[in-house]
């Protein structure tokens, strides 16, 4: 049997096999090329004037307002739910968990339809809101917040629940033996210890709410000034005025990059991180 020929071994161990390298390059191009094209083809010269058009500012303001409100709703309602899911054994626990996270995998449009059947004028709950209080939710700014919260809250719940589940409950016990009530323990020990995940979940939730399209347009429609958020505005403007639509899309890209910068600690260095987060970070 012929022995293999000698080769330079130097750094051959570090070389990436072609079978892996080629798809990796294709994937990178596929993900980056469209973004580069958007930046290249943006009407940079007229950008200022295009963005100053009243509707753009309106849509951007509405988007920021509703995404932030939806995130606030998610924090107030979602974090307690995450705690319950992580720390309590309820009857039908896994079913509850599955239902709560269903919006993660469901097409947002379906969520919008579902919201209509719950809170629409003839909806299960909406009917009585209309009948008793004269309140109509669909096609209002509040409906936008609801649609966004419906779609985005599970991101926060899942992130925080995972962290709470992994967190050492020994600290909660220690707090109890020091005389802290359950609620005090939650505020002063439990939450601070999952702070990194809480922040990440909040940013994720906000970003998801900001990009929400399907549920919003189904449940809240597209009324300039009250329900036409940026994603909807981009979609509609692209049809009439591609240049303006592109400018809007660029704004959203910039916002997304800003979000990524906010998350950089968590994702940019995913491989280099040590055991810092588990203990709640003692930076």
């Amino acid at each position, binding site marked *: 049997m012929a022995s293999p020929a000698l080769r330079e071994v130097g750094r051959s161990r570090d070389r990436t096999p072609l079978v892996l390298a080629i798809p990796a390059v294709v994937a990178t191009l596929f993900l980056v090329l469209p973004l580069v094209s958007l930046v290249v083809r943006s009407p940079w010269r007229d950008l200022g004037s295009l963005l100053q058009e009243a509707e753009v500012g309106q849509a951007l303001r509405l988007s920021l307002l509703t995404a932030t409100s939806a995130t606030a709703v998610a924090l107030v309602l979602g974090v307690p739910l995450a705690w319950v899911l992580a720390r309590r054994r309820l009857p039908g626990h896994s079913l509850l968990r599955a239902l709560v996270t269903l919006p993660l995998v469901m097409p947002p449009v379906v969520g919008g339809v579902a919201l209509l059947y719950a809170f629409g004028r003839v909806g299960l709950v909406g009917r009585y809101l209309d009948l008793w209080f004269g309140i109509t939710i669909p096609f209002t700014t509040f409906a936008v917040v609801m649609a966004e919260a419906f779609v985005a809250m599970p991101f926060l719940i899942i992130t925080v629940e995972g962290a709470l589940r992994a967190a050492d409950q*020994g*600290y909660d*016990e*220690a*707090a*109890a*033996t*020091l*005389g*802290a*009530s*359950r609620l*005090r323990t939650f505020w*002063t*020990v439990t939450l*601070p*210890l999952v*702070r990194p995940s809480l922040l990440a979940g909040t940013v994720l939730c906000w970003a998801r709410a900001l990009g929400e399209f399907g549920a919003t347009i189904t449940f809240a429609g597209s009324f300039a000034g009250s329900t036409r958020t940026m994603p909807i505005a981009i979609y509609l403007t692209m049809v009439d005025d591609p240049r303006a639509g592109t400018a809007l899309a660029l704004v959203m890209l910039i916002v997304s990059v800003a979000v990524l910068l906010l998350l950089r600690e968590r994702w940019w260095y995913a491989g280099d991180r040590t055991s810092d987060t588990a*203990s*709640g*970070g*003692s930076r």
Partner: protein
Amino acid sequence: MTLDVAAVVRRGEFVLDVALGVAPGERLGVVGPNGSGKSTLLRAIAGLVPIGSGSIRSGSRLLAEGSRAIPAEERRVALVFQDHRLFPHLTVLDNVAYGPRAAGVRRRPARAAAQEWLGRLDIADLAGRRPAQLSGGQSQRVALARALAQEPEVLLLDEPTAALDADARISVRAELGRHLAGLSIPTILVTHDPVEALVMTDRLVVLEQGRVVQTGTPAEIASRPATPYVARLMGLNLYAGNAGPDGVVLSGGGRLDVADRPGTGAVLVSLRPSAITVHLARPEGASHRNVWPATVDRMEVLGDRVRLHVTGEPDALVDVTPASVAELGLAPGVRVWLSAKATEATAYAR
């Protein structure tokens, strides 16, 4: 206020059934093998696990009775955990101030009180540190300060030196002993360290399989261990057997001659490891009445001695000097002869 426990705790198959009392200022040591229920006992008193039946009271205050109980946060029972559990996101000062804050003290006076406790434990200079920046010994002291700062009615310590390295253990043990001695509340200290049990406690309770098998002062327990576990803990060989005309026939195999025998019947025989001599051949014309063959199983260094774990009839712990280890060529697997004078073995009725 006296702590009174007479309770049964069930955890799956395991049943802890304990009755004990601790007077104010008394330091009760709880020793026992792993899984004997030591930590469960502390957790039940602290309110972290419910009791099944019985009661726990501190003075006239009922902490738990049957299925009804005061929650942990209202018990005023401080627990120093084995792993300390200092809050990683708080400074040392805020860790110690946590108890007073939870009791409703405002931030500034709570911190002042915390600083005072740190001073009392000689760690005032650590106030600004994070727990991650502390050594094991420092962390242990902070945990004690945090437990005491809430001015508890009962103090519980779960293996306070187990998480420390050998050097820190010695210094922490000395200090901890000093601090505990100055307290005027009932203190329970769980340990598996014989030195700790002997030095830092006024009274010992031996727990095995969820039950108290012996209780007494450390000296009493050291001189008359009731079970092989206690004897091993105290560094003694202990054998159960029946005293008869030819000495004591041991239940585990073998026979020992004992100088003073309390009549006949079931007895325990204790034998100090340093009272046994090791030979390579059967000792001839021996003044030693007890001679038996055995095999060295393992060896450990204890200070200036080497402790041999030897299997034979009976098994034995034997202390020899490092010089004899070299001279006799002792190593695991080596076959030896053991001898012990009858006057060195002590028998007492079971």
